[in-house]
């Protein structure tokens, strides 16, 4: 009797978790439905289904350009945030130095900051500097938020890293570069990999920062919003769904690669 109780409560936890997870994806599914509706306005059950909006979305030059911009921003953000985040994480978790505690906390502040306000603040700053907002400035804005996230993600890996291994490598005659390449990086690789995924996907999905700082350039979320506010067509949910599918594919591919590498290493 006593043993059945944990089992029952575990079952309740499973049910609750699945319920919440379904709720999380419910609106995503509704959006996908709306993108397949022939009519501009959504009525359920859908009166007529059509791939017309998907086709239009795929055909649009403008959307091609926006997708390119989004990818470009996300790629650059990924690379820069990995470089900054890698060293930032070493400073966060690997080295003991005066000011580390303060550094750890200051670094987290941008994460603990409402993004619309951060976006506006950056806009004001760029304006004060006389820099015109464009996708370049959007990169800077994304970085302000994403670098701390990536740093944290990598730092968690760094915590599990025994510095004695670096010392051992140095003792065995390895140079600084060789230690980095053959010891430190391979061990931190899972953290770097998930940091890269986070960086790319968070940039890909970010709206509030892009809204204020991308100027005349548009990213997918920004385009979706501006069309939602004025000029709504089912291209909005269609592109939203495509973007979601793209992110999911990337995440799955990322997971698969990580799994593959892990499996190969285990052998």
């Amino acid at each position, binding site marked *: 009797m006593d043993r059945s109780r944990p089992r029952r409560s575990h079952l309740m936890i499973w049910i609750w978790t699945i319920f919440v997870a379904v709720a999380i994806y419910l609106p995503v599914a509704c959006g996908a439905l709306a993108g397949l509706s022939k*009519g*501009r*306005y*959504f*009525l359920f059950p859908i009166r007529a289904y059509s791939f017309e909006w998907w086709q239009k979305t795929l055909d*649009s*030059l*403008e*959307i091609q*350009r926006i997708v390119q911009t989004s990818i470009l921003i996300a790629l*650059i953000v990924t690379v*820069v945030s990995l470089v900054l985040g890698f060293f930032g994480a070493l400073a966060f978790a690997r080295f003991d130095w005066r000011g580390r505690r303060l550094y750890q906390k200051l670094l987290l502040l941008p994460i603990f900051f409402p993004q619309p306000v951060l976006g506006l603040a950056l806009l004001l*700053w760029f*304006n*004060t*500097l*006389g*820099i*015109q*907002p*464009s996708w*370049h400035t959007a*990169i*800077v804005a994304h*970085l302000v938020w994403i670098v701390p996230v990536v740093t944290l993600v990598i730092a968690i890996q760094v915590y599990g890293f025994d510095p004695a291994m670096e010392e051992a490598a140095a003792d065995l005659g390895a140079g600084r570069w060789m230690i980095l390449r053959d010891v430190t990086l391979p061990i931190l690789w899972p953290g770097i990999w998930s940091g890269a995924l986070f960086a790319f996907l968070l940039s890909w999905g970010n709206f509030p920062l892009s809204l204020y700082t991308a*100027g*005349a*350039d*548009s990213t997918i979320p920004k385009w979706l919003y*501006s*069309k*939602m*506010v*004025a*000029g*709504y*067509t089912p*291209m909005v949910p269609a592109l939203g769904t495509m973007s979601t599918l793209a992110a999911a594919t990337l995440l799955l591919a990322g997971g698969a690669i990580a799994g593959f590498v892990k499996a190969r290493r285990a052998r």
Partner: protein
Amino acid sequence: MTNFNRRDTLKILGAGALAAGAPLGFPGAALAAREKELNILCWEGYNSAQVLDPFREKEGATVKAESLTNDPTMINRLRSGESKVWDLINVNNPWARKIMYPEKLIKPLPKDEFMPYFDKMLEQFHPPYKWAMSDDGSELLGMTQRFGPYSYVVNTDKISRKTAEETGWDLFNDESLAGKYGILESDDWNVFNIFLVAGLDPFKEHSPEEMKAFEDTALKVFKGAKLIGDIATMNQALISGEIDLHMTGGTYSVSPARADGFPEMRAITPLKGPMNGKGGVSWIEVTSTVNNPELSPLAPEFLKYVQDPEVAHTVAFAEGTFNPVAQMGNKACFDLFTKDELDAIQWDSLEEEMARSVEYDIVPDYEKALDLMNNAKRQRS
């Protein structure tokens, strides 16, 4: 803060360091490429793929368009220093003539090239057309295209067109409709309409008593609104039956719903009102070239491009909102409109509705009214 009060010092400091942080070319480096680049700040429609894609292909140019849904924001963007970014700005009637030109945010167009286009427009736009010209009438400030009346939109299955037209703005004073109407969010246009609901002419100076009446009306109107939202939300809510009518809509906002098979949704212009007897307001967009030191040579080309009958028709039926265009005065353009399209833009009653409307103008005490309205909006919960 005293150390920081020199903007230039900051600029150098910041630009240098940002360049270090994000080693990317900044727009300054891209000056040479402006021949193939055009940036448009506009109302929704001009930023659609149907309008821009052919131009992109034709010119091989990078065209970026950002749409905003209100005039003050766009103009403020220029003021804040973005006049170096944009080439064209598309705002409503009074702004070019009364604000942007005096503030040197836009520059005039060559008259000899652009005046002839006005001849082919609908009669009311024949030259010299007031809102396209500078105050002294000497300069051509922009090109007109889309226009339309806007007051409110009703679901005529719920409230007949006749009732709606005859009742006028008092619809929003009717307590039995509280909770059944929405407000299309557009702060400046909301201000006009609340003046009208209060029985006041928005486009003049107001006495303290009148402002009090405005405030009371604002409180009541916002409290009674079921929702405040954008065009898509309003149409979706009308079609879903969440609301029966909404304030601050017109042909421009309801036409996509009409085109989508909901002809019972209709923009209404009241028969009478407090503006010398008129109750409706109309808008006419004027597109001007920004006073950009590096103005793209494509800016005038684009203005000409949209005058083309085919393109004008596309502009009228760009995604988002469907509108009558001034170029319908040209038969070549008018003939492109199908019956369904004319129905969507309520062509049947367009002329009389325009006749019942005043062209909107600057509200002299806009800022005060806006503050009052925002206060009222917050108290709606």
